[in-house]
């Protein structure tokens, strides 16, 4: 799908999703600076096209697991903004009842299994979700997201081996945002690339522009179908970028302001769709503004809900340790 093929309604829908993803995270940043959100908080700003595009090709039986940069994955799997924002604020109305926070969000109903704070740990877990899909024969696919930093973990390769050996229905989504905390890919990965890491296991890697939601939708569509049809695991290598520091406490001195500004100016996933809507489909500024207002209202309401929600009751401390 190119911007030109984009239908009016689906184009507007995608724009709305991208914008909501961006603005939820911006609001989270704001609430963090006001002290409503605390601890570790990793924003997804810049990378929105990855999950927004992929979710176009996911079904309700599919499973998702990711790392600590998880708010937007939750959102796109259908967890309400109120529930996400409340979790960020440690409130009982949050998706983890205030006990997980930013890094630990889950929904059995929507089949999101975290939110994992340990780099790399989600990768074998994702293959386990795929194992369950295959075992049950339910036709589901596991979407297993991990970063360029996580891509060097040994457990990733143990997982690749078994996933290929057992032909598991897993899409490994490598979100290569160029940095693992402060270390760039060329300083962490031998050979300077992660695009060939599936080769020894016979797992194909598809290169995707992770800043271009159309590229994500188009390239992933047939790949996901193949995985769903039992043709074995695939790696989607998403070339993407995070705009903010690694977490709220990272001043990001390891990259130049120029580098960040250039990406924002030339590759921003939201601007790209907005321009396509305006110039190729002829959407008017008023419609764009309407969506902005709509999304702003959702985000403001979520923040209000989160702030006004009660903290978990004291007895919750001892709950849910074991069943």
């Amino acid at each position, binding site marked *: 799908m190119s911007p030109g093929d984009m239908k009016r309604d689906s184009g507007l829908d995608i724009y709305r999703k991208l914008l909501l993803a961006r603005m939820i995270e911006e609001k989270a940043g704001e609430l963090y600076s006001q002290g409503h959100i605390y*601890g570790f908080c990793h924003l997804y700003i810049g990378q929105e096209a990855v999950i927004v595009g992929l979710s176009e090709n996911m079904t309700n039986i599919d499973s998702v697991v990711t790392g600590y940069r998880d708010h937007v994955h939750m959102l796109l799997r259908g967890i309400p903004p109120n529930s996400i924002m409340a979790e960020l604020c*440690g409130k009982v109305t949050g998706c983890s009842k205030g006990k997980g*926070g930013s890094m630990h969000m889950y929904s059995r109903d929507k089949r999101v299994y975290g939110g994992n704070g340990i780099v790399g740990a989600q990768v074998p877990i994702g293959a386990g979700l795929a194992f369950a899909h295959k075992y049950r024969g339910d036709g589901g696919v596991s979407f297993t997201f991990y970063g360029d930093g996580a891509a060097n*973990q040994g457990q990733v390769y143990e997982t690749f081996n078994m996933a290929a050996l057992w032909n598991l229905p897993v899409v490994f989504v490598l979100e290569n945002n160029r940095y693992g905390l*402060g270390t760039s890919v060329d300083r962490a990965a031998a050979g300077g690339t992660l695009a060939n890491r599936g080769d020894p296991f016979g797992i194909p890697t598809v290169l995707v522009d992770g800043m271009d939601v159309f590229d994500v939708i188009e390239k992933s569509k047939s790949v996901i179908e193949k995985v769903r049809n039992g043709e074995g695991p695939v790696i989607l290598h998403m070339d993407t970028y995070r705009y903010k520091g690694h977490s709220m406490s990272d001043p990001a001195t390891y990259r130049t302001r120029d580098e960040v500004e250039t990406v924002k100016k030339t590759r921003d996933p939201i601007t790209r769709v907005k321009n396509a809507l305006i110039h190729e489909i002829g959407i008017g500024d008023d419609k764009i503004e309407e969506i902005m207002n709509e999304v702003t209202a959702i985000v403001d309401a979520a923040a209000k809900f989160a702030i006004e929600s009660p*903290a978990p009751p004291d007895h919750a*401390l*001892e709950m849910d340790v074991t069943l």
Partner: protein
Amino acid sequence: MSGVPVRLAIRDAIAEEMRRDQDVFLMGEEVGRYNGAYKASQGLMDEFGAGRIIDTPITEYGFSGICVGAAFAGLRPIVEFMTFNFAMQAIDHIVNSAAKTLYMSGGEINCPIVFRGPNGAPRNVAAQHSQCFASWYAHCPGLKVVSPYTSFEASALLKAAIRDNNPVIFLEHESLYGKKFDMPDGGADSLLPLDKAIVMKEGSDITITAFSISVDHALCASEVLRNQYGISAEVINLISLRPIDKTTIVNSIKKTGRILSVEEGWSVCGIGAEIMAIAVEHAFDYLDCEPTRITSSDTPMPYAKTLELLALPSQSKIIETALAMCNCPK
């Protein structure tokens, strides 16, 4: 020197040892160019270069094993874990490779290595990032385990750990990195023994043992106990969790007749459990009340601030417990 933050004491201790001994090097995530995730290696790459201050990929299992190999060959690695939570990925090499090889080799191969980094509960970072591993490592023969409180302790113990010929687990605390302490001008060779507790404050009514951040709570509590209730608490900073300095603890119990252990770890099979065992095994006849421990709640760490406060040991919990042990009305 007055007002030296713990993180600086650690940095300087590493630098001093690296200047003294070419075989000492530092390896870990973001230790070099980033100057350390918690800035405990600020400026070290500038001084020692990328050959001795070594940035790694996020591969704890691998680089810990590599450092154990280097230590077998006689180098003296300092492994920094960004936090000890991530050392769980490396615990196989810490226990099965580093701790046991001297024994397995009949004394042939030793492993002079330091595994260091923040341990315990910083604030607000939820279950996977808030855990005290003291009792995990204290359980294992072949390791030495220490946890400093002050800047001087951090410096003098770290230097001793680097010079020690065994694997040493060095447990720091994120909440102490910025805390400033006056330091004696002991010079570069001022070391502390790795196996001795320190009596921080003498007292006669109750013994309180603690380590790391818990020493802070215990000292504050002891002030209140003295000033408001006339109770004289002896505060022991354990320093070493393997071996635990039994002599200092037992001598103190003989004096006070009461023992209260404080730690951020969980209670089951924890450091406190060991202190209780020491009290019962070695000072049973001197006990005036049951040995008691304060630990974190027997749960993973919740994110919500209010719950986290309930979960952690605190000054007020120490005061309350000590008063009950001393039969002192509130």
